[in-house]
């Protein structure tokens, strides 16, 4: 196995889905279990071809329930693991995503969002699974979701997703819309050495002293792999630090579930990423993510040319939600414009963070993203608020 084959260093004209697969391999992913689905199929195709080249394993599963289960199993065996799907498959994965949360399994789930609900419009874009990503599995938990807006970010943020999942022992979602997934664009892949890879914390004790769910000060427990002598139990039932079920005490539920939430909440400053563009003197702020943020960027540039003080806050992290960042900026602007390819999801979070500041919501369903002129129109309306 040569290094060149692991990381395809150089400039490429590449598809978003393919860049995602290459990002995963560069991050150290060596296991993919999935069930191909438009518009995420190209990720599975690429992984099927590439993983054997880097001594990895690709498994075509019977369905998405099995896919997610296999991903958890592989991660517990110590291998960085992922799956990729779209809305209908993401729905089927939700139960085992909850299991991954409860068992604190590092893994990456890519959702290339198409039009829903149900099988909807397989080849058309959507941003309709944003709330499902946050709340899709039952019970209380915190999750991390990243929203790439270019082919370069499909590569970069997939690596980031693996790193975050390893640091916080949590499933991390890459939530891209169909346009970003299928788009072809230039991507620059850095050299092998320039890629930042983070691996999960390993036990610092002997196997007989290992307490599998005893957290460090960062609230994350070190993780042993199955099969290397650290014998322990992992379960979806509420458990104590030893991993054994504790289904009858309030204390066990409070301690565990609170910690699962807190390990993300208390580290949010390290996780949350936004990109601020022309916001220094902005009177109208557009908040957008994915392809929509590119329409918004065009609109903001046009607005500036026309003399309107507009800026764009592009959300890179969708969950945990950048509410503090938005609250701070909201105090300084007249209005916030939120374009989304859905009937209103992230806008609810923006409204919550923006408090009194007026929010103009721009829903969009169907084949095309927002045209810049539509967002420009909303910016102009916002300027007179």
């Amino acid at each position, binding site marked *: 196995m040569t290094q060149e084959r692991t990381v395809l260093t150089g400039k490429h004209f590449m598809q978003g889905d393919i860049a995602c697969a290459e990002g995963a391999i560069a991050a150290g992913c060596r296991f993919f279990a999935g069930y191909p689905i438009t518009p995420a199929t190209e990720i599975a195709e690429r992984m099927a071809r590439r993983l054997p080249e880097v001594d990895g394993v690709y498994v075509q599963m019977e369905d998405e329930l099995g896919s997610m289960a296999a991903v958890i199993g592989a991660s517990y065996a110590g291998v960085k693991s992922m799956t990729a799907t779209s809305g209908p498959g993401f729905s089927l994965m939700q139960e085992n995503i909850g299991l991954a949360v409860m068992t604190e399994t590092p893994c990456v789930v890519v959702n290339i969002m198409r039009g829903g609900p149900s099988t909807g419009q397989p080849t058309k874009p959507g941003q309709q699974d944003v709330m499902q990503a946050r709340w899709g599995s039952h019970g209380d938990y915190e999750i991390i979701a990243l929203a790439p807006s270019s082919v370069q970010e499909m590569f970069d943020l997939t690596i980031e997703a693996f790193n975050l999942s390893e640091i916080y022992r949590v499933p991390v979602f890459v939530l891209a819309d169909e346009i970003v997934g299928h788009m072809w664009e230039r991507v620059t892949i850095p050299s092998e050495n320039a890629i930042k890879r983070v691996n999960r914390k390993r036990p610092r004790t002997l196997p007989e002293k290992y307490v599998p769910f005893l957290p460090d000060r960062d609230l994350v427990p070190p993780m042993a792999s199955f099969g290397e002598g650290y014998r322990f139990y992992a379960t979806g039932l509420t458990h104590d630090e030893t991993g054994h079920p504790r289904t009858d005490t309030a204390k066990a539920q409070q301690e565990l579930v609170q910690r699962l939430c807190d390990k993300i909440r208390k580290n949010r400053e390290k996780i949350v990423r936004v990109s601020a563009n022309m916001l220094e003197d902005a009177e109208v702020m557009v908040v957008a993510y994915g392809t929509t943020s590119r329409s918004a960027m065009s609109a903001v540039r046009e607005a500036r040319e026309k003399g309107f003080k507009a800026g764009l806050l592009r959300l890179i992290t969708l969950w945990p939600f950048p509410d503090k960042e938005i609250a701070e900026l909201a105090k300084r602007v007249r209005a916030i414009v939120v374009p989304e390819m859905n009937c209103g999801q992230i806008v609810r979070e923006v409204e919550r963070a923006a408090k009194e500041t007026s929010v103009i919501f721009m829903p969009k369903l169907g084949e095309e993203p927002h*045209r810049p002129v539509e967002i420009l129109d909303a910016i102009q309306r916002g300027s007179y608020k």
Partner: protein
Amino acid sequence: MRLEIRAAGFGGQGIIRAGLMLATAACIYGDKNAVETQSYGPESRGGACKSEVVISDKEIDFPKVSKPDILIAMSQEAYNQYAHTLKQGGTLLLDSDMVLKQKKNLDIQVFEIPATKIAEKLKNTIVANVVMLGAFTSITNLVEVEAIKKSILDNVPKKTGKLNLAAFEKGYDYGKLLKKKKR
């Protein structure tokens, strides 16, 4: 300079591949930024299909085509749907074997290329898309011949390289001839 190109036809004609060849030539073998996006139905062949390429000196924010400078139409349906979306004075390249009826009074420049027939003569209609790309290259002068040839070879199976380059040359020559006549 932002240039918008739309290619449309039906699934199986290599519409998306043609867009990719063009965008790769501009972006990897040229010095421009380029983005290709696509739209197609759930069927693998026969459904409506379009490929959109934006080429620019600057960073490309909005990746889709709204008012194309150039349209490549490879089916009647594509022509009917998109001919009127061209910019005023825009350039239309159509496969005259597929587009039989044209609208009147459109303020555009039309180039008719019998791409499917030319491809038939090469004994493989599958390269009609590359014939069109050849004509596109000589008519528009947007990409370097060497750049597009490299990108064609990047985008096709090795054993079909010769066939595709032959298709390109035929299209290129036909386009050159058409352009001369227009003058």
